[in-house]
């Protein structure tokens, strides 16, 4: 069978440590198949992650992986892309990693429009630390750290990303692998900050919030005629309470951080020669 699908070339051989039935397996295979379709050379593939179940993904992918510290995946990815724009940089994080401790970085990496793809695995629980509620937990009020109900209102990651001005916002579902694969491909193609929220079930600690059956029941694709440039309509769709919308909410173009740096360099060139002599001149 010569068309043995190429995706397994992107697997590093390290055996995934996720619990059986975890939604993240679907995401990993969608991601790896997307790489295969895009025929990305593994040497230019860089995966940066924070801390949590989601952030173990880089170990299982044959690429340059950076498993950093809690909530700091995005700024590190921003640094990597700045230092080497040729790389295809992906940041990976969970709902705790991306919206709780790392929440402060999301608006700025988004408004900087760094040309990276950010996958936020939303399983509405802290899985690695075994069952504390997370910023997106809603239907599973009693957790180990909220025995008497949740304190705050849940965050809607996609709506947040739209408001922060991310130029590509989409939402996928780990079970609908084909659709998720398409989203990831579009995300990587998109020039600028691509934010993809991926709903996934945590088979061990939260089967109520991201219960596959519940999601399947009120799942709906974003209508074809939705204009991805229209952020307000996108926000209405993303924040929809009854229906869970899947697909691309926002896609528009604006200069990336890399473009801005090039612009700065061009302007700076006009201000004197680019050598130490010239620089020291002002101190003479």
């Amino acid at each position: 069978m010569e068309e043995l699908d190429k995706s397994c070339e992107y697997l590093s051989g390290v055996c995934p440590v996720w619990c059986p039935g975890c939604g993240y397996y679907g995401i990993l295979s969608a991601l790896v198949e997307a790489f295969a379709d895009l025929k990305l050379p593994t040497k230019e593939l860089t995966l940066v992650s924070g801390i949590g179940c989601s952030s173990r993904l880089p170990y299982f992918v044959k690429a340059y992986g950076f498993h950093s510290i809690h909530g700091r995946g995005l700024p590190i990815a921003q640094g990597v892309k700045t230092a080497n724009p040729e790389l295809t940089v992906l940041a990976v994080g969970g709902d705790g990693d991306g919206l709780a401790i790392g929440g402060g970085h999301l608006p700025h990496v988004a408004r900087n429009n760094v040309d990276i793809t950010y996958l936020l695995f939303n399983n509405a629980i802290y899985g690695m630390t075994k069952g504390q509620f997370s910023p997106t937990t809603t239907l599973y009020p009693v957790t180990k750290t909220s025995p008497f109900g949740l304190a705050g209102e849940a965050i809607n990651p996609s709506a947040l990303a739209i408001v922060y001005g991310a130029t590509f916002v989409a939402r996928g579902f780990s079970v609908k692998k084909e659709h998720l694969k398409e989203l990831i491909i579009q995300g990587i193609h998109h020039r600028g900050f691509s934010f993809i929220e991926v709903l996934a079930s945590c088979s061990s600690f939260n089967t109520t919030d991201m219960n596959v059956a519940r999601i399947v029941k009120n799942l709906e694709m974003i209508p074809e005629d939705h204009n991805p440039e229209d952020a307000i309509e996108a926000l209405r769709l993303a924040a929809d309470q009854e229906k869970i919308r899947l697909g691309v909410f926002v896609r528009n173009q604006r200069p990336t951080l890399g473009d801005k740096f090039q612009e700065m360099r061009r302007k700076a060139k006009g201000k004197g020669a680019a050598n130490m002599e010239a620089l020291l001149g002002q101190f003479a």
Partner: protein
Amino acid sequence: MYNILFNRHIGLNPHSLLLPEPVRDVGDYGAIATTGLTSGHQGCVGCGMVSGTNQVLRALKLSGKHVVASIGTGCNEVITTQNTSCWGEVSVDHNNFPNTAATLSGNIAALKALAQAGGVSPESIVNVGIAGDGGTYDIGLQALLAWIARGENGVYVCLNNQAYMNTGVQGSGATPYGTDTTTTPFGKAIRGNQRTPQYLLDLALAAGAPYVAAACPLWHRDLMIKAQKAAAIEGPCVLEVYSVCPEGWKSDTDVFHEITELALETRSWILYEAERERDTNTVLFTLNYLAKKYLPISDYLRLQERFAGMRDFPEMVRRAQEIIEARWSFWRPVMEANGIEWKEEARAI
């Protein structure tokens, strides 16, 4: 004979000539809250037949009617009724080995009688006969064709695992060419099963069945649609289900998915259905799955050791490929109608 029409559309088809409105498509996850067989059956690990039975029963229950199953002796019966019953709310009548269709006919007649006496409303019951390939192709064929000829209203499901599995993998009427079974061994003089498999659905159509279909548990939506259609259509409908059997096919127990996919891609199993318009005597054939990768039969032989011997005999593989091509050429009009370039013969060995 009947004149043949082809349905241009390839794929899932909840609609039918013979039904006022389409049957229910259970969607990707078949999320319907009802069980087929209950737990505790003694099937082997990786048995495809049990999942076939499960999906048929769950599809029939969708009609809301009480399912009465007339089952023939065989693996499916022995493993589910060993000093107990795993059939849940389904009522089961196991009579004998050769007479599954006869037993079905008897139960239909009993229902008709009760209906006439006003005891039970026929709409509330769906009669289904379930037997293996041995019990359908060989010993029970006579009873089956007679039941179809009598045009009695019911569903006959043949779980085809392509050999007599319960008695220890002996060759049956449905055993593919070249297969090594204990009664058609891959010997030095005669190499494996010499017979080419007969095709049950063609026989059923010829006998006058209003609706026949081939399905596999992997494409559960397609299977469950066909089961519902067979129940809804008035008259004797026949459904043949592809059942992987790791013990008999000597394959790993966790390659149920790959084997079925290969069966479909090498077209050694074709998902199709046929409906017969009674008065105009025309039969509409619908192809439900078109092979994407068009693989040669040698790929299908790889995962199953029952074909181990055959793999080293190119002319046997070529013969098997010819059998498949002959069967597949029937669908040429559909391919051309869909603008798909007709490949004379897949890349053989």
